[in-house]
């Protein structure tokens, strides 16, 4: 059983929902990112989505854009992000890590090279926001053969035909984008998310994660009632953005800075 499937199975057994923080690797620097990943787990995260930077993040809102710009200013590369995962795995073998980003850095490294390096580092799944399943026919088989889960997005605009096709290509979990727009938008409509999730359930037995627009403990708890996983990105990155570019933060300091995750955990488990 893959680490992601095991994670969701265990949560279900305990009647809990997954809390998935997203953070941009290399913001404010790679050493702090590693510390933050451990802090997030300590605060109750079940799975981590680790963003690797791309110069042209056309599906992201301003908060993630700025995090990516800070990361690129520190010369973070896809290889240095994989190195963060390798270091994380030396002390945490349980928490699944999903790499999230845009296709071009992966193309540039080469599909097989990337896949081998990701597996060796301890990555569990990959979500490429600008690679719809239609364009994944070369990369997807390579990743699946190597044991990487392929996570795809479903949007409020997706029609039944697309939903069926996406679910067929997905493994690990399905990421439902809660609203029309970019990451960090503020118009979350829980009722319409519930309706669309119910529709989505008819197509897949995979866990359903919901992201975009979840910003506090209350909205996390609302989404946890209707989904299997809650993804939080921009709201967390706003806290991380307050950190300085230094690698001397203690574990306690990083846990305090990301206490939003602990608050969400508490509200979701209530």
């Amino acid at each position, binding site marked *: 059983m893959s680490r992601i499937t095991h994670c969701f199975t265990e949560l279900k057994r305990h009647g809990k929902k997954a809390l998935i923080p997203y953070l941009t690797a290399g913001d404010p620097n790679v050493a702090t990112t590693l510390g933050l990943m451990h802090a997030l787990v300590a605060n109750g995260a079940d799975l981590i989505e680790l963003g690797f*930077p*791309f*110069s*042209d*993040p*056309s*599906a*992201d*809102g*301003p908060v993630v*854009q700025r995090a990516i*710009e800070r990361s*690129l200013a520190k010369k973070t*590369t*896809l*290889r240095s992000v994989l190195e963060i995962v390798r270091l994380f795995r030396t002390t945490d073998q349980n928490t699944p890590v999903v790499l999230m980003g*845009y*296709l*071009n*850095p*992966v*193309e*540039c*490294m080469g599909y097989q090279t990337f896949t081998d390096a990701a597996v060796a580092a301890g990555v569990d799944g990959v979500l490429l*926001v*600008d*690679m*719809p399943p*239609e*364009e994944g026919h070369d990369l997807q088989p390579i990743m699946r053969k190597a044991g990487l889960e392929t996570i*795809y*997005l*479903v*949007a*409020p*605009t*997706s*029609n039944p035909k*697309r939903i069926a096709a*996406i679910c067929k290509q997905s493994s690990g979990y399905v990421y439902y*984008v809660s609203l*029309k*727009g*970019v990451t960090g*938008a503020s118009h979350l409509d829980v009722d319409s998310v519930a309706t669309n999730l119910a529709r989505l359930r008819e197509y897949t037995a995979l866990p359903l994660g919901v992201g975009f627009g979840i910003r506090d403990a209350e909205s996390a708890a609302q989404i946890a009632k209707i989904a299997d996983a809650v993804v939080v990105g921009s709201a967390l990155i706003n806290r991380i953005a307050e950190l300085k570019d230094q690698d001397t933060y203690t574990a306690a300091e990083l846990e305090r800075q990301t206490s939003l995750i602990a608050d969400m955990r508490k509200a979701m488990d209530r």
Partner: protein
Amino acid sequence: MSEHLIHHKTYDFPDQSGHFGPFGGIFVGETLMPALEELNRQYERLKHDPAFWAEFDYDLAHYVGRPSPLYFAERLTKLCGGARIFLKREDLNHTGAHKVNNTIGQALLARAMGKTRIIAETGAGQHGVATATVAARLGLECHVFMGVDDIQRQSANVFRMKMLGANVVGVSSGSRTLKDAMNEALRDWATNVDNTYYIIGTVAGPHPYPMLVRDFQSVIGREVKEQSMKQIGRLPDSLVACVGGGSNAIGLFYPFIDDKQVRMIGVEAGGLGLETGKHAAPLSAGQPGVLHGNRTYLMNDADGQILETHSVSAGLDYPGVGPEHSWLKDLHRAEYTAVTDDEALAAFRTLTRSEGIIPALESSHAVAHALKLAPTLPAEHVMVVNLSGRGDKDLHTVAAIDNIKL
């Protein structure tokens, strides 16, 4: 079948999934996928509707002023002492460039799809002006995304867009130029996808844009074919056009793809020289990758990060290129080369003084290559250079280079 849809015997691209060989395709977030499918469906329907093309032709004739002349540049030819140089006068179009051919077509699509809000990206501002123009004419709300650096260097076009009623949105992320304007337009579209039509200005972006922009711009090459038969009794021997995203070049080349004897030459922006890395010439010095919804030749670093480009011409200052050009390059059907800022500026002056035509700095790149190539060719060789736009918008840039304050 409409004459607007050209069917080649040996070349049928893009395929059903929007690919030109390994290039093109649809690489966007899921939110936009259904909108692109819908656009493709609507275009496939309308492109077989004679009434759609009749309206397109009417607008091009009476609003844009087509056909644009194929002009024999006699003094320029004498100056070069070789091939006979003809200029396709896209600079005479309403709004001053070839861009309006495409915005007319896409505005008709937007109206047919019932969209009430238009967005566009722009670099030099020519596409922004052409979009604001058709939006004004159809009474549609219009928002144009433009890098804040480009807003600075193209202030006249910014003012034109505002006069036309468009909202010009400054983009201050990334390198603050055309590529970032395109990112922001994609973000806006994902947010307002229900009522918004995105008019992409070049033959790039996700399928079906490279195809439909090509089809609209192909009026250039169709006219050249007809005009050259009428004026010289045969097809030209070579076609020369500048390539940024590559819409004026595809417009000229596409109808000639099956005419194998016709050389097609695309001229990229060599900036300060390819060896300096400060240029915008992905076909000459880049490699394939994925940006803005399609796979194509790109300028990126070893980690796949898109590089900042440089060109004296804002309209060519883009790190990618239309995927069909990448395919024509790999098929060896078209050749691609680059000229430097300095060569383009020299050509700008040469054409202005010899023919009394002030070209856009973009088009000056094509002229510059023609000036190099024509002297090496015999007098019976006929070369058509696409004069894609006029230079009024560039007078400030050229004056600044000459240290003249306007």
